[in-house]
Every structure is written in C-alpha cells, then in structure tokens.
C-alpha cells in the first residue's frame, strides 16, 4: 500500500441483467484518482452499460437488475447514496452532443441552478470557468444567450463537457464522445480531457482503439459483457496477456 495511487472507484462482482439478458458478467475493477481509463470493446460488449452503472443512469432502463457493488471513495453508490447525489459527483458526456433546448449560458448554468445556486454573479463565474476549461469560451463568449442547439457538433460536445464541469463533479464519464466529430473537433475534445486530468478522474468509452491509446493511462477491454483485461495502455497495445485483446487491438477481431 506504500505508493499505491488512491482508488476513486471500485467495482466488485458487478452483474447487470436487462430482463433475462445478461449484459455485464461479474466485472471487478478499480479506477485510480486523476487517471483516464479507456474502455474499449466491440459493439454489445457492455461498455456503455458499465458506464451507466457508474452514475446510476442505468436506473432509468426498464426491467434492469444490478447486482454487485460500486464504491465511490469507499461508499456504496447503490446502498448509501441517492441517484441525484451520485450523478452530481459522477458527470457524463454522451455519444451524441445533446445540449438542452436552452441558451448556451443556461445550458452550463443548468446543473448549478438545480443544486440551488441562483446568485447571478457566481453563476456567470462558473459558466465562464467551465466554458474555458472545455476550450469553448473564446468561440461563444459573445453569444452566450443564443441557443445551444445552434452550435456545430464539436462545439455542442464541448458545451456538454462544460455543462458537466459546471456541476463540479469528481468523475467524468465519456460515452464515445467523438464518434460524431471531425478530427479537428476530436483533437479539441481530447485536449480538454488532458487538461482536466489535473482535477478529475475520467473514464472514456470509445470505439476508436487509437483514441484509447492516445488518451488512456490504463485501458480495459470488454467482450460480451466480460472484462477480459485491464492494464497500462502501453501493455494492452504492445503485449496483452489475453489473445482476444491482441486480436481486437490489432484489428483481427470479427
């Protein structure tokens, strides 16, 4: 335990069923503080479900059963915390940029307002800080009152990141955040993620193996609901222990 990095999230024996369909099978892993964990795997491997378990958005799925334990800073998020508290501390950025049908300012201020902050000056401060952290401030500072839906795809995604940051979470989950973006926008989002490493623990689900290699400190490989392997990014891509991982990262899979 000497120089072991601090554990932010611990997942123990996680099993998730949608009705009779099991989508996660006995997953156990942990996420360190201030690291970026890349999560890769083919379609239907359970990556997105795994992410939605971590902030309890999975609660919204009808007929879902979650067994096992998920700890945030050592506290069981299913037994000891309510869903809103979990989601405040564990933010999420979705695959498709999904601003709310509000102005840019109101999109970012939405979270803080819901948690009781209505002081105009403080809100403006948070909005500016969050937009800056998401590398969007310079592009939108003159039109904060226009609708968030009028931004380009890449800008919308960074707006969603800013919106998530405004709540000051501890963990940020990304669900394939660049799947709909061009390479330049992707680069901007990745730059934001690096910048955010100083303060946040981040988990990135991606279909793009190269992105996981570029951004991830460690990478987890999921296959058909099972966690096949989790290791330092360098090892996963150069010397994986499991042959299936090797097949996937080298593109021989499926």
């Amino acid at each position: 335990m000497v120089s072991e990095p601090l554990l932010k999230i611990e997942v123990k024996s996680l099993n998730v069923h949608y009705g009779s369909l099991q989508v996660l099978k006995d997953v156990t892993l942990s996420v360190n503080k201030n690291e970026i964990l890349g999560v890769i795997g083919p379609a239907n491997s359970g990556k997105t479900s795994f992410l939605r378990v971590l902030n309890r958005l999975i609660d919204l799925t009808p007929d879902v059963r979650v067994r096992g334990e998920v700890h945030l800073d050592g506290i069981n998020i299913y037994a000891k915390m309510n869903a809103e508290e979990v989601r405040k501390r564990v933010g999420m950025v979705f695959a498709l940029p999904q601003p709310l049908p509000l102005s840019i300012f109101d999109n970012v201020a939405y979270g803080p307002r819901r948690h009781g902050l209505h002081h105009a000056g403080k809100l403006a401060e948070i909005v500016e800080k969050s937009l800056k952290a998401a590398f969007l401030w310079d592009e939108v500072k003159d039109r904060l009152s226009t609708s968030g839906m009028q931004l380009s795809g890449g800008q919308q995604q960074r707006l969603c990141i800013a919106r998530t940051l405004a709540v000051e979470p501890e963990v940020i989950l990304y669900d394939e955040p660049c799947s709909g973006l061009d390479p330049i926008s992707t680069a901007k989002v990745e730059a934001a993620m690096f910048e955010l490493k100083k303060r946040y623990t981040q988990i990135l689900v991606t279909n793009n193996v190269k992105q996981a290699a570029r951004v991830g400190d460690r990478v987890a490989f999921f296959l058909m609901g099972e966690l096949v392997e989790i290791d330092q990014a360098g090892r996963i891509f150069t010397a994986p222990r499991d042959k299936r991982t090797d097949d996937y990262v080298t593109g021989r899979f499926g």
Partner: protein
Amino acid sequence: MKRQVESAIEKFILLNGVACIFFVVLIFLFLAREGLALFKTFSPLDFLAGTRWYPISTPPKYGILPLFLGSLIVTLGATVISVPLGMACAIFIGEIAPRWLREILKAGVELLAAIPSIVIGFIGMMTLAPWVKYLFHLPTGLTALSGAITLAFMAVPTIVSIMEDAITAVPKSYRAGSLALGATHWQTIYRVVLPAASSGIVAAVMLGIGRVIGETMAVMMITGNAAVIPTTILEPVRTMTATIAAEMGETVQGSEHYFALFAIGLVLFVISFLINMTAGAFLHRERK
C-alpha cells in the same frame, strides 16, 4: 408512368388542400352574409352591448351581452379546472407511470373522449347539479359552475392526449442530459421536458378551450339557460351555443331572429379565430 402516378397523387393532395380552404371560405361567407343581415334592421351596438335577449317579443331584443358573458364564465371555469387536471394527468402518464399503468390510463382517457357529450351532460344534470346545489346551498344546481365542471370533463381527454403526445415526443436525450447533471426527476420534468414540449402543450390547451367553447348539448342541459348577466359562477347562465341550438329550430328562414342567431354564430367564429391567432402568435414566439 411512375412520374405520372406521382404527379397525379400530388395534384390530388393539392386539390384536397385547396378544397379545404375553399370550404372554410365558403362557410365564412355564408355565416357573414346571414349574420350581418341582422344589422340592416337592428343596431350592432344594441346587439353586442344589449343586456336583454328577448328574441320573440314585440319588439324583439337581441342583446347578446349576457350570452357572451355566460359563455365566457363557463369557458373560463372549465379551462381553470381542466388545464391543471389535464396537465397533471399527461405528466403522470408520460413521465411517471410505469409502462403497464400508462397503457391502462391512456385507454381510459381515450374511452372518456369517446363518451358522447350528451351522456356527460345527462350524468352532470342528474348527479353533479344536485351535488353543487347541496354543497353551496343554492336554489338550483343548474349553474355556470356545474357547466364548467361538466365541460372540463370533456376537455380533459383532448388536453391529456395531445399534451401526452407532446411530452412523449421530447427527445430522451434531454431527460438523460438533465438527470446526468444530478437534476431530480421533477426538476427534469419542470425545467426541461415541459419547456421543450411547450408548443404542444399550448396547442393542447387551445384545442381544449375550443372544445369547451363550442360545446352545446351538455351546456344546454346543465347551465339553466337563464339569460342574465352572471355575477358569480354559482348562478344559472345561458351560453351563445346553447342559444343557437335551442332557438334555431323554431326560426323561420330569413326572419330577424334567424339572422340574429347567425350573428351569434359569427361572434363565435370570430372568438375561435382570435383564440387560434393568439395560440399561433404564442407558438411563433416560442420557436424563436
């Protein structure tokens, strides 16, 4: 060949659209011609501001102010009752109820819409009116309030089904986005879902009001039909629609009374038109 079929279908649809407008214009012209004919023999001011409706006296009095106010108070009352009720019901069905309950409730609401208005009026007359009479110690239960409650029941299915459609049509991503920021279920409904569905909600309310203001038979059975200017909602009133329905049968085509009833129809038309205009303006502003 394919192109010909295509263009034939297009023309057919165009014809339908044009026919629709054509008929609306035709109906309006007919209404205007018959309604405005009254003012050749009767002053428009006495018609609009007159407080006495005695169409079969000599000389007749065609003052529609009590009828107008009667319609107004019943419509307002029904709106005040049906909009919150319908909205709460739509939110519950669209956002809160589990799937099995949702299906049952939707079927129930549709069933409510399928009840003929005269049946609702009859039930209102037999059960609601005595209850209103007893509760407020009134000489009669046939009051504007009874009418408003009855009409609210007729407007609720319209309001619920259209509002529920609008709420369900809000993209799931809005809800997920809001919830992912730690907002509660209620905050998400109130701050995101309802604003996003607002145009549909306004349309639902307007159609509900439209249903109420145009309703005739039930209102005739339950409001008492006394053409007095109402001072409270606990008094009998006579609505414009009930007046047309009750008196149209007896009038001789081309008589002054006949024209007067068409003039009421014209007033109703103008009111509906204004409601639609208001709704349109509101929706337009919403979209910006």
